[in-house]
């Protein structure tokens, strides 16, 4: 059956809510996506019937909980087409995943005068952990430039790969611009220079199928809450050879094999990186979310969103004084824009009066704002449940904004 956003939308109870007395037009999924009933119900069912602490419990309830938790690990493996489930590490989100790699792999492999290569379009979470690591080690952070459309300068990226480069960390899809990076090409360039690659997939996984083996990367990170699962959970996938060689991240229970006052030994991967009791219910919710999007089909979702993005880009261009920030040839989901003489914050407030939720500000990507010489943008981001009606409402709302300011 073909994908139908009108039908999929009914899976999300939030759309029964009114905002400012009007139907909710939710255009902020790049910040966090809404949750389908399947996820909400799966979590409630889990807490009602199967909750206990996981691993090591000898009783049936703990077995049920462990089964649901570890079942999600397999779902995440399949979702990313990773070779092995033990390469899936549950974390709190993409931010923690990147911090984990910086603190373990980074600390081990990056030394004085080494370099970490990122791009100009990164989210702060893929800048600051590397900045701190570079400061600590006396290493350098190098930044591959983007062009005026917000597309990565691949040639410049290639030139920045040197014998000193010890890691490249790249977003798959930019949260502020919507640019989709040519990840496999970048991985190929990096690997040819002997440089391992981490991909920040937070903005990619809700919109397109991801195959880490096809991409060829070394690490891939994403957050549950952006892919319609609960917040507070995320996934780090890493090649087993890397994960096995890496020192632990946080320490405590679960991550150890043996503990004595003379010393401790570490558990097998992935448990070595999962100290303490995790967000068990959250992981189960993530499992339901992955089932949900897989059931709809990511290729179908992707096709729907591409069509909608093209429609929205055209529609926004009819708004006088509107300038899109981020017009790369290959884009997903995100429409960042500014309006002549009207600050994004004012746009956000006036749209809100129409029940339209957009994000305004720097989108945790201040270097992107500096690159385009704007203090902030308004950002509408699309997801599987958005329709042309949402885009039409946005355009009408922006005319209202212009009306308020034209007085």
């Amino acid at each position, binding site marked *: 059956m073909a994908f139908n956003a009108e039908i999929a939308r009914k899976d999300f109870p939030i759309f029964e809510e009114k905002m400012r007395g009007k139907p909710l037009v939710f255009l902020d999924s790049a910040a966090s996506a809404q949750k389908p009933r399947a996820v909400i119900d799966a979590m409630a069912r889990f807490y009602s019937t199967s909750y206990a602490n996981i691993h090591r419990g000898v009783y049936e309830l703990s077995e049920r909980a462990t089964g649901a938790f570890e079942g999600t690990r397999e779902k995440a493996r399949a979702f990313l087409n990773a070779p092995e489930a033990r390469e899936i590490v549950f974390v709190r989100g993409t931010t923690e995943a990147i911090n984990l790699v910086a603190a373990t792999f980074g600390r081990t492999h990056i030394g004085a005068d080494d370099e970490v290569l990122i791009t100009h379009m990164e989210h702060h979470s893929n800048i600051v952990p590397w900045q701190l690591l570079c400061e600590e080690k006396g290493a350098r952070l190098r930044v591959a430039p983007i062009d005026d459309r917000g597309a990565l300068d691949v040639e410049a990226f290639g030139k920045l790969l040197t014998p000193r480069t010890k890691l490249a960390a790249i977003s798959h899809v930019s949260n502020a611009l919507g640019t989709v990076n040519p990840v496999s090409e970048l991985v190929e360039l990096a690997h040819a220079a002997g440089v391992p690659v981490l991909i920040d997939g937070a903005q990619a996984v809700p919109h397109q199928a991801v195959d880490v083996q096809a991409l060829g990367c070394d690490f891939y990170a994403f957050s549950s809450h952006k892919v319609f699962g609960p917040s507070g959970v995320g996934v780090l996938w890493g090649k087993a050879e890397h994960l096995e060689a890496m020192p632990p991240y946080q320490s405590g229970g679960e991550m150890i094999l043996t503990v004595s006052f003379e010393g401790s030994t570490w558990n097998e991967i992935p448990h070595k990186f999962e100290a303490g009791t995790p967000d068990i219910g959250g992981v189960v919710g993530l499992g339901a979310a992955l089932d949900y999007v897989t059931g709809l089909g990511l290729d179908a979702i992707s096709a729907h969103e591409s069509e909608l993005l093209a429609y929205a880009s055209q529609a926004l261009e009819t708004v006088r004084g509107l300038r899109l920030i981020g017009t790369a040839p290959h884009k997903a989901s995100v429409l960042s824009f500014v309006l002549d003489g009207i*600050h*994004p*914050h*004012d746009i956000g*407030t*006036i749209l809100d009066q129409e029940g339209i939720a957009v994000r305004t500000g720097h989108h945790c990507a201040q270097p992107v*704002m500096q690159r385009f010489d704007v*203090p902030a943008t308004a950002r509408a981001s699309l997801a599987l449940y958005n329709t042309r009606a949402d885009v039409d409402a946005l355009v009408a709302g922006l005319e209202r904004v212009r009306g308020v300011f034209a007085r």
Partner: protein
Amino acid sequence: MSELRELYQTVILDHNNSPRNFGNVENATGRAAGHNPLCGDQIEVSVRVVDGVVKDLRFEGSGCAISTASASIMTQAVKDKPLENAFALFERFHQLVTTSSEQAIDSEALGKLAVFGGVREFPVRVKCATLPWHTLKNALEGTSDVAKTE
């Protein structure tokens, strides 16, 4: 709709379009920077205080209509006022934009600043209106800290 009109009053839009006292005070006796990381608003306020009177004050920066108009109207309201009156206005203004609408506000004492009464219906915008004032306070008190709206 009416709340929106209340927020974006003609006076506010006018000051946003052509901000008064925009720029830098020469021979400033104090200056301070303010930043609202939520929306990227940046403001710098410079003041010249002579014999306890705010003889001149100006602001620079970029921000939304509410913060720009607030800064502009603030400079008009505070100019040539003794320091204690300036601080008293800060308190009154703060009350105006944070007090619930049921409570009575002495709008006479506020003068033109009363146009910001609509802001209280928009809690997330309160910081836009108060940022210039926090920054002014720092400038007058001679602190060099970046003003925040927290």
